[in-house]
């Protein structure tokens, strides 16, 4: 499903965000990516969706070589993934429901289906009551949950989440994790960047640890880290 071969990413200002990373993730896996602030986790994710291009190496997603893909195919690549962005990226002029619906409009889902599914998925993240609120009128955690709802509404092949619980309290976080687990059981590959030690430890899934752009650990059934 996801294959990084010797991938490096050096930003224009010289920051080395990824340093010769090789990693393989199978279809249906549930993987945590952990690491310190600035280690390169988000960069790892950005390479998957063609948001950034690798400085060297090959990134393959779902059989497609992402760093070679034609520009006009990028949207179709992205539709295979549901992405929860670290900075949410909600459309400021659309309501919560419209933001979620937008991901479905893009793939031209019939209006009726959209209405129903948007309602269902808002229910899953417990935000039906906020359907008509604009992002600026939502709390931080509510915005984050809208971002999550948008990522899962199309039942993507891959769910890629960059610290999706950073603004959520432990209870809500647990709810989201249950949701992700359920989605994973339905066959979706889940790749999740997180800082929530407790959760990683509890879930007992594959853990990839990045330090200074290098993968220093890749354990099946791992824990957050051994530091404490």
């Amino acid at each position, binding site marked *: 499903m996801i294959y990084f071969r010797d991938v490096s990413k050096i930003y224009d200002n010289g920051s080395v965000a990824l340093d010769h990373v090789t990693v393989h993730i199978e279809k249906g896996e549930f993987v945590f990516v952990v690491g310190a602030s600035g280690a390169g986790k988000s960069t790892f994710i950005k390479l998957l*969706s063609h*948001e950034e291009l690798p400085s060297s190496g090959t990134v393959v997603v779902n059989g497609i070589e992402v760093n070679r893909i034609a520009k006009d195919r990028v*949207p179709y690549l992205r539709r295979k993934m549901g*992405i929860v962005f670290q900075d949410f990226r909600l459309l400021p002029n659309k309501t919560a429901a419209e933001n979620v619906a937008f991901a479905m409009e893009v793939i031209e889902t019939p209006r009726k289906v959209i209405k129903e599914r948007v309602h269902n998925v808002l229910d899953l993240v417990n935000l039906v009551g906020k359907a008509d609120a604009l992002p600026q009128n939502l709390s931080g955690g509510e915005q984050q949950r809208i971002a999550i709802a948008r990522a899962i509404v199309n039942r993507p092949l891959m769910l890629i989440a960059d610290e999706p619980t950073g603004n959520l309290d432990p209870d809500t976080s647990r709810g989201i994790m249950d949701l992700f687990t359920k989605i994973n059981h339905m066959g979706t590959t889940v790749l999740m960047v997180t800082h929530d030690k407790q959760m990683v430890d509890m879930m007992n899934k594959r853990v990839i640890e990045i330090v200074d752009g290098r993968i220093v650990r890749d354990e099946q059934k791992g824990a957050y880290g051994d530091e404490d």
Partner: protein
Amino acid sequence: MAELSVTNRKGHTAMKIRTMRYYTSEAFTSFRRNSFMSFASIATVALSLFILGVFMTMVANLDYFADNLENQVQISVYLKDGITTDQVMKVGRELKELPDVKSIEFTDKAKAMDRLKERMKDQPGILDALEGKNPLPSSYEITFTNPEAVKKTAAVVAKYPEVESSHYGQEIVEQLFSITQVIRWGGIALIIFLTFATLFIISNTIRLTVFARRREIGIMKYVGATNWFIRWPFLLEGLFLGFIGGLIADMALFQFYGFVTTEIHESLAFLPMVSMYPFMYKTGSVLLIISMIIGALGSTISLKRYMKV
């Protein structure tokens, strides 16, 4: 709609209609929600086009005025004294056959004298001094369809045996021609320059409104929207924006030109003006089409750089 099909090459017609409806409703929603920017763009479009329109009408009228002046240039062909009526009529027929001649008018000696009296009424001494004699020749006045034929024709006609001489106020006419030339070319240059300046200012404004929404555009791409999916609502919004702006400009222009023509008709009746219809219909349509095109293009071209993600 060839491009539209790119967004849904696998879609069937029902889907296309639904998608189009989506684009339209998106455009209107965005128009409403970005009301400050919509207002700013419409106001700029309306004002700029109105200014452009005012100068179009001005230039058109100057041109019309120049035409009018040029068409009043006449040659006076003075006939020799003592030729027969047959000869006079023959000359008239010959003149009529000449190229570019619009009309000829015969002035006999008596009429010429009446005219002179009119002209000389400030200095009655002269007429008294003539003591009732009429030394004036009879003449033909020729007007032309193409003012450029004046000079040549004058030379040709002067050689007719029946003709004493031909005159056309050479200096004044040549000054007049160079003025009308300057008016024409200056006017055209002005309109071209103004058109481009207007287009630039309008598209600049629209580009700024797109710039203010650049993050939004990027987000759409990240969520899997194709370029055309993003572009259509912007295009329709721009079209609508241009339409409203152009319409306002047109309405203002109609009012303006209506006012000016009636005012001038009242106070300067002798000034020729291009009449309101169909001139205003043409100008109005041109402006409206320009504004819609620039609205649509302005908003979509400037999208490009923000869609590169």
